[in-house]
């Protein structure tokens, strides 16, 4: 009686060859995809990185543009943390009617073209609108101002913060809060002593993602505020006015700037860099 065949032996040569071809095709498709993502960025930094870093020393307009970008993105992120954290918490913990609708409304700015987001903001905050003219009368100019840049950044990037912060709260079992409350904490005290310490990494990661998204915003900002110019608008202007060669250093600096939040996120998820070990 012949010995029982192993799985390997039972496969026909044709089937084995078919799987081999499939493996090659999948590997090829994955490699092309990675190349497609990485090649433009590597080309950009390679072609303009050094000149961009040098320009930081000589190009005052680039420096002020970068400073403006970083300052406005930071302000927008801080406003997002203050305003959107309670929303994220409510969406994670609350079981209120209309929660799904609120959630969908918050995600909407992520899905519309960003110039459209800019137009929508202009319709509400423009100088000829009731709100815009009211704010103007109070001395708060939106269009063509730093405030407008912050508004545009906040509008397009806060939904990312809400989504990620909500996940961070979701990961904290509500029973921890429940136990804290039976141990004498009010709702706020339990939030401060238990939930926030357990969720802070996720909330910080959410803020970093929001900041990175705000720094990279162009479409909504350019509709509301052309001057003063943030870095993305500056790179666009130099490209249209002087061509690729002049736009390259600004664009490369923006890519290098994006590496900062990327590194911070990686540091926050430290162990993600290491291959997981089975115990």
């Amino acid at each position, binding site marked *: 009686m012949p010995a029982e065949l192993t799985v390997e032996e039972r496969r026909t040569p044709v089937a084995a060859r078919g799987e081999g071809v499939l493996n090659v095709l999948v590997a090829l498709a994955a490699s092309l995809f990675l190349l497609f993502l990485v090649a433009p960025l590597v080309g950009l930094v390679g072609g303009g990185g050094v000149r961009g870093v040098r320009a930081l020393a000589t190009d005052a307009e680039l420096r002020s543009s970068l400073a403006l970008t970083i300052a406005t993105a930071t302000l927008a992120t801080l406003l997002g943390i203050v305003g959107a954290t309670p929303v994220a918490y409510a969406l994670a913990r609350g079981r209120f009617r209309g929660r799904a609708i609120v959630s969908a409304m918050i995600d909407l700015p992520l899905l519309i073209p960003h110039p459209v987001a800019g137009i929508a903001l202009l319709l509400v905050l423009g100088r000829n609108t009731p709100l815009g003219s009211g704010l103007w009368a109070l001395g708060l100019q939106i269009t063509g101002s730093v405030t407008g840049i912050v508004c545009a950044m906040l509008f397009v990037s806060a939904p990312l913060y809400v989504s990620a912060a909500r996940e961070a709260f979701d990961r904290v*079992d509500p*029973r*921890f809060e*429940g*136990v*804290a*409350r*039976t*141990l*004498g*904490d*009010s*709702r706020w005290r339990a939030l401060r*002593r*238990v939930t926030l*310490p*357990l969720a802070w990494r996720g909330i910080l990661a959410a803020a970093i993602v929001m900041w990175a998204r705000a720094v990279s915003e162009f479409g909504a900002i350019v509709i509301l505020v052309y001057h003063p110019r943030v870095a993305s608008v500056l790179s666009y202007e130099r490209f249209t006015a002087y061509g690729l060669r002049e736009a390259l250093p600004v664009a490369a600096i923006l890519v290098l700037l994006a590496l900062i939040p990327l590194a911070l996120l990686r540091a926050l998820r430290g162990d993600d860099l290491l291959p997981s070990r089975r115990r």
Partner: protein
Amino acid sequence: MTSCLRDADDVHTHQARPVIALEGIHATVGDFELADISFVVPQGAYGIVIGPTGAGKTTLVESIAGLVPITRGRLTLGDTELTHAAPEQRRLSIVYQHAYLFPHLNVRENVGYGSTSSRVTVEMLERFGLGEVAGRDVRALSGGERQLVALARALARRPEVLLLDEPFAALDPRRRVTVRRELRTIYFERRFTVLQVTHDFHEAGLLGDVAMVLDRGRMLQVGEPEDLFRRPSTPVVADFLGAENVFAGVAQPIRDESPDWKPSTDAEDVEHAVAFTTRGITLYALGHVIPGAAHAVIRADDISLSRSAGASSVRNQFRGRVVEIASAGAITRVTVDVSGLQLVAAVTTRSVDELRIAPGVEVFAAFKATAVHLC
């Protein structure tokens, strides 16, 4: 069977001031509804809620704790109506099966979280043998240590009521004994009121002064554990509480006297002799019963076995043949087939050996009429 937590001069009488009183409580979590729950746990008593998985036990303790809102009914803790009060106003603590220790705090910080003073924190740490691990990360503790920390943390608040949600379920048997012993000792000392939920009916008999059976969000029966075991209100309760002999049949009051029963003479509490027929066999019982379909419940340890029809005065005596023997240490469960009716008797392993009981052997199974509970 009596509770091993009771002293001879038992203070847990039902005349004691009620500490936990629920009147027609309703609570909803998602699609699950806890409906019309009423019971009282007296001050210093140990209450047990027994029910299978999904019965709503956790929802019940969380609604008492104020973590799940009560939609209808009334909850009183001590002398205060606290149906809608915030959890922090209720002077109670909760311990879950999975401890829920705060992972960002060490052992000492966990125990001290709601403690009334640092002196109490130190006392609790020492009390539960946690002094040596006080500075340790709680994630590095064993399951038993975690549960001890959870108990110490809950008791450091000096609660009037301690709510326990399957606190021993996740522990291995050895650890379970240790943690239970610690809890029992401190309970004896402090005499706070406890409400513990469990799916393990043995714990009810072991710990409880008052027990409630919960199933699918409804309270099936409330009473002393002994009462629940001996007189389950429904076949479902009997089955869940581990009664081996539950038979469906027809009950009929009869005029009869027998040496092993003594009907009550109280005019308002007249107990009748009852003939209960199941599968062509008639059992005799005693109780209040409406003629018609009923269930008879007989605890296995109420059935005795002998090799000959003795001079026993018991009303129920049947000849049968042993079909199965299951030994578990000192107690052996013997299944006897009586004309198609399978009776399970719990007898000592020693008597099984002495009587030379084995499968196929003919035996006589006997039990008193008072051991037959009709529901």
